[in-house]
């Protein structure tokens, strides 16, 4: 590899070992994740929605921050791969009693876990854990602070590819609180790496970070112009707690300027799809009729999320299996 600093996410063969952020991954790896997920999506046709691939492996969900949807889809993904799953709610565990994070990790390693799925309120937490785990353990980032939420981004890419096909022909708008959204950051990187024709972001000036220019993204503060002719509209959840901090006007005013209504959606391409990572705030960033409407693929995103997480988990464990078989950790 040409890059001087080795990417901790990849093993010496360039295969995915940890999945922490889409930023440094190339198109080949992102496409491999999408293709593998495509094959797992067929599992829903079977009476027994399981494959024996990860039988005997143990996946520990380490959620330092609550998230029902992400945790349950990771849990289902692991179970459909026949892995055993431990759900460790870190907010109520020994970390509260003063055990350090590294002690917690060592204990989970001693319990013969094979993979950690980490959700944390601090940016960089999953990277930190990946740097400190035993070599046979894989780490998947399930959301860290404002930094990244790579599996959410990949399930969004999967959804876009499923409904719209080739990224090089697509105009995609990401709308809302870009500045505080790890989902948006990961999406923008993935969209760019996959060669999206035009990426637009829209939202109040106070919620759009300045570094977006590097990503080749067009910034709009006027939602209507951002929607003009787009093929995909991705709405972000407005974190209502931000409104307390003067970054935002009232919810009503936000809805008037940035809420996706039936009327507004007509500005997009007639066959545009509407996406949202959930949970949706109806009447704040999206009208109920749009969220439930014919162009909405919000629930399909949830279904695809399981296949995408199965793909990421099996690819990561696959790379470790190969290394172990070759005696690399001996």
């Amino acid at each position, binding site marked *: 590899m040409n890059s001087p600093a080795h990417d901790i996410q990849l093993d010496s063969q360039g295969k995915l070992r940890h999945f922490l952020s889409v930023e440094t991954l190339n198109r080949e790896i992102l496409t491999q994740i999408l293709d593998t997920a495509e094959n797992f999506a067929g599992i829903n046709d*079977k009476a027994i929605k399981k494959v024996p691939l990860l039988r005997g492996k143990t996946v520990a969900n380490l959620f330092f921050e609550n998230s029902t949807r992400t945790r349950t889809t990771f849990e289902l993904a692991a179970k459909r791969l026949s892995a055993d799953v431990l759900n460790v709610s870190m907010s109520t565990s020994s970390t509260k009693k003063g055990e350090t994070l590294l002690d917690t990790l060592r204990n989970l390693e001693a319990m013969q876990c094979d993979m950690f799925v980490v959700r944390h309120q601090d940016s960089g937490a999953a990277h930190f854990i990946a740097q400190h785990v035993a070599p046979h353990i894989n780490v998947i980032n399930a959301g860290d602070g404002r930094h990244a939420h790579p599996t959410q981004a990949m399930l969004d890419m999967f959804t876009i590819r499923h409904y719209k096909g080739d990224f090089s022909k697509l105009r995609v708008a990401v709308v809302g609180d870009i500045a505080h959204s790890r989902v948006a950051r990961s999406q923008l990187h993935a969209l760019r790496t996959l060669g999206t024709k035009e990426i637009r972001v829209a939202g109040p000036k106070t919620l759009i970070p300045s570094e977006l220019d590097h990503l080749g993204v067009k910034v709009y503060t006027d939602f209507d112009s951002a929607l003009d002719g787009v093929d995909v509209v991705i709405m972000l959840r407005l974190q209502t707690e931000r409104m307390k901090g003067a970054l935002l006007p009232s919810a009503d005013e936000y809805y008037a300027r940035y809420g996706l209504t039936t009327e507004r959606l007509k500005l997009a391409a007639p066959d545009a799809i509407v996406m949202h990572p959930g949970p949706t705030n109806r009447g704040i960033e999206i009208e109920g009729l749009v969220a439930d409407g014919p162009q909405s693929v919000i629930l399909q995103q949830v279904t695809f999320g399981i296949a995408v997480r199965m793909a990421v988990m099996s690819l990561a464990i696959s790379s470790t299996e190969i290394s172990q078989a070759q005696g690399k950790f001996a």
Partner: protein
Amino acid sequence: MTTIEPDIVRTWLTKMATRLKTVLADDLDDCMMVGIHSGGVVVARELHQMLGLKDPLGELNISFYRDDFSRIGLHPTVGASNLPGPVDGRTVVLVDDVIYSGRTIRAAMNEIFDYGRPARIILAVLVERDGHELPIRADVIGDAMDLHTGQVVKLQAGDLSLQISEHPDQSGEPA
């Protein structure tokens, strides 16, 4: 490298079709034929046409069911399986190009049972070679070959010829 001409392969296929008619008897019209990706699908396509089966051909990609994940990781040619309908109570004709260790067939049967409970499974393979590692035998074969461990048999999808070559990596085990 030895090549077995398509004409010979076709006579094997004809023999298999005739034999399948006998084995299937009354179930012929109602059976579901399933080829194992990728060589088995080629053989199954021919048999499916010769027998004039009603139901579309099914395909199995057994990558997620292989027993060598802990040794070689995820198979590079993973793909989705696609069966034409429910397998419950049906007679399934499972088709592959070569049976060797029997591990592929075991994985394929495990996958079929995740779709439902077939009434019976009949195994048809073009080439049976020595080297069984499991108590699995084909019901219908095109030809039996006596090959040594280092040899590889491969069906050419384009013209239905069969190539027997020396495997460059002698450590390779039955597939």
